[in-house]
């Protein structure tokens, strides 16, 4: 009885996954095969439209991760190894609470609070560090740029990464921590010798979960960014690349004919990108399995 229901559950997940994959492939095939002129007026075709979207998706997610990862590790270490127990507990609850905020709310916050707040800072960046291509002008007047989006995404993925990192750090065997301390390690050296290496596989998983959410995030990006289909590394200008998910959400209601197929095709690409990210994580974890501490 139990083994049958377990088998059914196992098969069900495969069926659902297959159904989604078949839907994506079947519906996006027309977009791959269509005449480029039918897809966009300038004749650049599917890839001309989708290339910037793929770039924007990865770019925004990578920026978010760059902001979020060091912060998350710092917070997790503070909670697990530095803060007094009461403070750590309170902080843990607050982080979990942050994870429960819906992304629409983060989007609203991004538009109404964050964008105006960071705009003067963006102006300063362009004025003083404008020679770095990332900070090249002209600066956006609204503050609604890809960097703002990245900050919103970073805040969104922060709780996921922090929560997992904290759990992983807390599981460092006391024996290993004491081994480091008994060798005369300071607390920070103990963290470097015992806690971080032990938590490395878990940290990679946490990062990938965060990255997965950042890649697929729709509402916050769609709300904050006024999209344009470009490839640009400039962080502070008013023209910004948008992401696949946000593009689908914004354009699907008005799409018709081949346009629908194109949007579904971009969805297929997002699916593939996420798959690749997960595979890379798995490879990274397996590569040093013997040193993982699991044996």
């Amino acid at each position, binding site marked *: 009885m139990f083994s049958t229901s377990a088998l059914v559950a196992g098969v069900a997940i495969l069926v659902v996954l297959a159904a989604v994959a078949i839907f994506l492939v079947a519906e996006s095939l027309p977009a791959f095969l269509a005449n480029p002129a039918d897809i966009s007026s300038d004749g650049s075709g599917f890839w001309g439209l989708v290339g910037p979207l793929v770039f924007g998706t990865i770019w925004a997610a990578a920026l978010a991760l760059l902001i979020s990862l060091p912060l998350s590790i710092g917070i997790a270490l503070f909670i697990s190894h530095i803060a007094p127990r009461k403070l750590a507990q309170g902080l843990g609850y607050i982080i979990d609470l942050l994870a429960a905020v819906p992304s629409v709310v983060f989007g609203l916050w991004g538009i109404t609070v964050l964008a105006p707040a960071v705009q003067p800072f963006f102006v300063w960046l362009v004025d003083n560090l404008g020679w770095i291509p990332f900070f090249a002008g002209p600066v956006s007047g609204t503050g609604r740029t890809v960097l703002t989006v990245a900050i919103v995404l970073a805040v969104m993925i922060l709780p996921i990464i922090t929560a997992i990192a904290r759990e992983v750090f807390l599981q460092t065997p006391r024996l290993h*921590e004491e081994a480091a301390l008994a*060798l*005369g390690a300071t607390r920070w050296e103990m963290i470097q010798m015992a806690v971080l290496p032990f938590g490395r596989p878990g940290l990679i998983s946490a990062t990938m979960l965060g990255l997965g959410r950042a890649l697929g995030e729709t509402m916050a990006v769609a709300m904050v960014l006024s999209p344009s289909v470009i490839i640009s590394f400039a962080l502070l200008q008013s023209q910004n690349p948008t992401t696949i998910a946000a593009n689908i959400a914004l354009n699907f209601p008005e799409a018709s004919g081949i346009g629908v197929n194109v949007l579904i095709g971009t969805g297929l690409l997002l699916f593939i990108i996420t798959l690749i990210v997960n595979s890379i994580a798995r490879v990274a974890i397996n590569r*040093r399995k013997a*040193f993982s*501490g699991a044996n």
Partner: protein
Amino acid sequence: MSKRIEINDLNVYYSNFLAVEGVSLTIEPRTVTAFIGPSGCGKSTLLRTINRMHEVIPGARVEGEVLIDGQDLYGPGIDPVVVRRQVGMVFQRPNPFPTMSIRDNVIAGVKLNNRKMSKSDADNLVEQSLQGANLWNEVKDRLDKPGSGLSGGQQQRLCIARAIAVSPDVLLMDEPCSALDPISTLAIEDLIGELKNEFTIVIVTHNMQQASRVSDRTAFFNISGTGEPGKLIEFDDTTTIFENPHVQSTEDYISGRFG
């Protein structure tokens, strides 16, 4: 290097709980001293005060003095980190760093002090320390393999190699053989006999045969009941303790009448 340890009228507390009361003893350089006694008598706690590892537990504190060659480990301005670099420790369960190779495990402590060590210096130190721990011949062909792949006894000798690689003055061992089989135990006991030529060794053990085999001096600790502090009952040459103890409770313990 090898140094004398003097413990003067030491009380150890965990918050308000007095775990060890009024211990005074002197441990000579280049000797092996065994701490024996029933569970909960504070012998491990006392051992940990010699390198301030008990401070890992919040609320732990001491009153009294622990002197190593006359220097008080609990004096003002003494950093526990510095103390632990002079007083090495081997734990009950082997604890090599699982994320490091055998080689990196050996030099882990040295790297804390001296990050830029030349490769040849490091190689020499690795060989010397592993030789010192009687492990070199077994692992010399797989120094870059993880330390967690070794057997329990080998892992424990790896931990000893790691502890002696930093050339400490004193080596503390907290029941180093309790998780090992008899053959591995014998290997560690032989090793202790060799190591005492260079280090002052203090070993906590539940195995009285082990205490009588490896140690020169033996300290017997006891508690009068649960919640009572542990006390030093008798401290003498190992042969005296085991053959002709002066205190009745020592004799009861070593002859197996209680504990």
